[in-house]
């Protein structure tokens, strides 16, 4: 929790993505801690997005009666990242040409 909040301050971030793809199980303590972290980040002015929730974890969360109503959840990290970009007014576009250098992406800030 502390390290995320410190990072938010250091990098001036407006959005924090918490990807829990690698988390095998979630119990009440973990979920509670996650909620606390999200609330603390909100208090500091950063929005949190949770991504990578496994089906089993989703079931566990609901069975445990944990309320994630006020929390943004996305299926994949890429979805969360897309939302974060959208929130910060940025888009990812493909650059055409580039003589076979493969797909390249460009971050561009919208005016």
């Amino acid at each position: 929790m502390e390290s995320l909040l410190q990072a938010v301050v250091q990098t001036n971030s407006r959005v924090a993505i918490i990807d829990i793809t690698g988390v095998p199980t979630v119990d009440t303590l973990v979920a509670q801690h996650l909620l606390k972290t999200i609330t603390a980040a909100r208090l500091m002015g950063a929005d949190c997005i949770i991504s990578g929730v496994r089906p089993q974890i989703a079931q566990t969360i609901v069975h445990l009666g944990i309320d994630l109503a006020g929390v943004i959840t996305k299926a994949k990290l890429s979805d969360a990242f897309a939302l974060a970009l959208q929130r910060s007014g940025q888009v990812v576009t493909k650059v055409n040409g580039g003589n076979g250098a493969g797909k390249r992406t460009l971050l561009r800030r919208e005016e």
Partner: protein
Amino acid sequence: MERIPILRMGQFLLVTIQVDMHDRLALQLQDDLTEKISECSSRGVLIDISTLEIVDSFIGRMLANIAAMARVLDAETVVVGMQPAVAITLVELGMSLSGVRTALNVETGMELLYELRGDFHSEMGG
């Protein structure tokens, strides 16, 4: 008696808390701020608590109260610059300040206020 200065900036009020908050000071601020909002007919209040290191449940409740009072007086409240330790303390105290808007620093806080008061800009533009 010591007071926390309230600065007027156009349609908004700026409060920067730079001393340790004790209960009486908090109540004084609550009084002064509500008076000032109606006096200046302000549309927004920005409270900077970046130098505040210790927050207890009383101060937390005061922040929530100020936001609620300001809303009744037709002003939005944004609390900016909360330190990680303070945020953790408030969460552990069970205070999520759900009615209070927050931002990372004064700059983003002002942006948020202007965003919230978009109607004001369109009025001025039109």
